[in-house]
């Protein structure tokens, strides 16, 4: 089972986020990035599948300042290949990012593409869906419990309201992973450092994919504060009377 995991890096919330002067995006001058939590789960699931069924795991990430560290960490955890995609703008939309990833994935031998189900930094949350559509592959999202059943892959997909559905999908396919079978593993620093000395990251320059996002940002702002609440004290009857009075007053 050969698996590709396209990894997204998202702004690290340890630093306070600021909005640019145009109010259209985050102020990207002071952002630091880290691996998207769901992508970490996708990687973990891929490594677990590899351990159980053999094969290889390749990881791909778009170049940011922290990309090397993320990719080396993935190698230290057990990934076999790591590809860094250069030439993609930091503010690129999911469409552009997905297209760039597909340029790399297209040239690989693989059975499954595992993406994180969503990421904190985009509006459409459809990285996996987009990759599947660009590659013309079947796609299941919000996935957990990935199981290899002969030639098929059995997965669980969660719907709103706690409804679960069981799917079977034939490789090649794209799965949007919600939760790996276990907590993403720890990569000991000494292993990461060792890998940094021994391994090299592959680099691929992205070509212009000629796609644009279907949406634009009109205004980005932090949630506006309301005027606060008035606390009503007293017994249940008193509180009820006060509420009735307020309602009468504001009825207009």
């Amino acid at each position: 089972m050969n698996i590709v995991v396209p990894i997204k890096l998202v702004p690290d919330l340890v630093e306070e986020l600021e909005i640019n002067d145009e109010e259209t995006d985050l102020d990207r001058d002071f952002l630091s990035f880290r691996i998207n939590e769901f992508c970490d789960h996708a990687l973990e699931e891929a490594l677990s599948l590899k351990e159980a069924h053999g094969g290889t795991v390749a990881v791909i990430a778009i170049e940011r300042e922290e990309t090397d560290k993320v990719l080396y960490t993935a190698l230290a955890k057990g990934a076999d290949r790591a590809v860094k995609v250069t030439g993609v703008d930091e503010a690129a939309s999911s469409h552009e990012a997905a297209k760039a990833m597909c340029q790399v994935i297209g040239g690989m031998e693989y059975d499954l593409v595992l993406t994180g189900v969503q990421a904190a930094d985009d509006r459409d949350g459809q990285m996996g869906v987009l990759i599947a559509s660009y590659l013309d592959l079947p796609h299941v999202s919000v996935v957990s419990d990935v199981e290899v059943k002969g030639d098929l892959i059995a997965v669980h997909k969660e719907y709103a309201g706690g409804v679960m559905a069981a799917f079977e999908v034939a490789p090649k396919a794209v799965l949007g992973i919600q939760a790996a079978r276990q907590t993403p593993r720890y990569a000991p620093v000494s292993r990461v450092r060792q890998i940094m000395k021994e391994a090299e990251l592959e680099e691929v320059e992205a070509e212009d994919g000629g796609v644009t996002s279907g949406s634009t940002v009109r205004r980005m702002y932090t949630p506006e504060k309301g005027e606060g609440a008035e606390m009503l004290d007293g017994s249940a009857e008193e509180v009820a009377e006060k509420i009735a009075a307020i309602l009468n007053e504001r009825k207009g």
Partner: protein
Amino acid sequence: MPEQPTREIFLHLDPWMQGVFYAAAAIASAVFLYGFWKRWKKYRSGRKENRFDRLGQRVARAAVAILTNSTVRRGETFGGIAHGLILWGFIVLFIGTCIVAFDHDFLRFFGVKLLKGDFYLGFSLALDVFGVLFLAGLVMMIVRRAVLRPPALDYARADAQGGKVDRSGFVTDDMIFVWLLLVIGVTGYAVEGLRIAQTMPDFERWSPVGYALAGTVNGLAADTLFDAHLWSWWIHGIAVFGFIAYIPFSKMMHIFTDAANLVFTNEGAARALPPPPEGSVGYATVADFTWKELLDFDACTKCGRCHVSCPANAAGTTLSPRDVILDLRTFANDALGTPELLKQRFRAGSKWPASANGDVDVAADVIRPETLWSCTTCMACMEQCPVGIEHLTSIVQLRRRLVDRGKLDDNLQGALMSLGDYGNSFGQSPKKRAKWTKGLSFKVKDARKEPVELLWFVGDFASYDPRIQDLSRQVAEVFHAAGVDFGILYDAERNAGNDVRRVGEEGLFEMLAEENAKALGDAEFQEIVTTDPHTLNALRNEYPALGVEHPTHHYTGVLAKLIADGKLDLSRKLGHRVTYHDPCYLARYNGEVDAPREVMRALGLDLVDMPRCGVNTFCCGAGGGRIWMDTSNEVKRTSEQRIEEALALGGVRYFVTACPKDYTMYSDAVKTLGKEADIEVKDLIELVAEALGEPS
């Protein structure tokens, strides 16, 4: 002319009997040498480690410890006296036996005889007196085990293992040891008494015990005495040869292993941990253990002092330092084919050590991960151990393996990832490290930008924990008021890595230490101060190996000096009744117990110590990375046990600490116990600030 005082060595023994005697001696010696050689081979197979530095000093230190019985006596009066009596009785009787052998088997051929005249009389007296001491010690030991039964001698495992492990062999081995020595001692007197009874020479009054015994039996018929003497002589002899042959296969071997271990032990070996083996990240197989560690496992006499002083054991976890050492001993002996007669046995159904070959992972199959993770690295085990066993180094080496294999709990993993990403375990921005300084009456100097006398290495808890930040501000204000020229590293500081190292994340420790080394290199200062004993230990004891060496002080020491120099006006006396909790990493790791007490005296506090204080302090349960772990395997938290210990003193208003982790742990414990009305946790700085502040 009076009879020349002496005795015949092989009295009543026909030449063929003497031949049998020498043959038996040869067999016993051969068995002994075989067992000894097997042990020697075992240690030779261990990984190399240089413990031969300052060898003269090492030998002298060990000789003093052994001959004064000091480490055995410490904290254990009854057992200590018993051991001292046996030890010295044994030494004198052994020397006596050597003199007899030398006289009879060597000097005799040159026509020389030592054992006659006054020398013989002195010899007789010395051996008789020390023989009595020897027997008294043995009887005390039997009483201790049969009647007193101290908890330390209960060999039950901390992890019950569902009765899969049979340790009755340990008890049998103990009993064979004392009873065999007792038989040797008693039959020795019997031989002497029966010999004297046959002629009752006057000079034998110099053997007071033998002479008195002789007096009770000298009325018996001559041939009865003759036979009885001969029989007791043989029983005595066989017992002695049995003893010699049995030594290397039993607890008796501690005579050698413990003497050696006391020579080769490094004082405070846990203060600066050893690196992982070359080309590996931790211990997985028997080949990873150093010869000193293999010796450690054999040095254990199961005295149980580590077992009863261990906070993890007191908390009801599966860890007992004694179990760890004894399990590793059994494992090493099985894996290396070293004979050990009465050892713990694993009944059918137990997985370990079904295969003590290469495919056993020590840090999982022999010592379970849960057990290894339970250690707080408080070092109580090593402090208590009378024979210099270094439990902690083995535990950390095994933890390194667990970290490498990813066998760590989610909380700990999260903390390590935060430490790797941000240099602190709180998962906060490194830029916010000095945020606590906001609200001070002055601006704290940036030691990277201007030279300072004292560099304050603040540490994670003092920087990020809201409860401790307030304490940090008080320290800063007191230092400022006393005119201390100090600064901090601001956002260049990282967690010092003391507990990261003890968790077993060696790579992360190196990374943090390198970053700190760089920050320290960029700053200009004379000395370092910290409020955190864990940080103190790393900077003082771990960093020198990385080439970073600065005089490092705990703030309690700095405060004591400021008071001594009259820099703080403490004319206002507080008078509260308080108790003080010695932090493990301050008292036990670094031997600092006086400075905080001096400060408290100067503050006019009525200090009452808890039973466990100074270097024998009890752990709060947070050390060694425990503060980052899921600790739900603790049945009764040690911090709560400690608060109860303080409450038992009666009328103590404040529970004083001098460690950020202690402050956190004990504040929680007081709340959990619902004792907020009875006792309050205070950091020493709060009391100093109170004494300095305006009278309210």
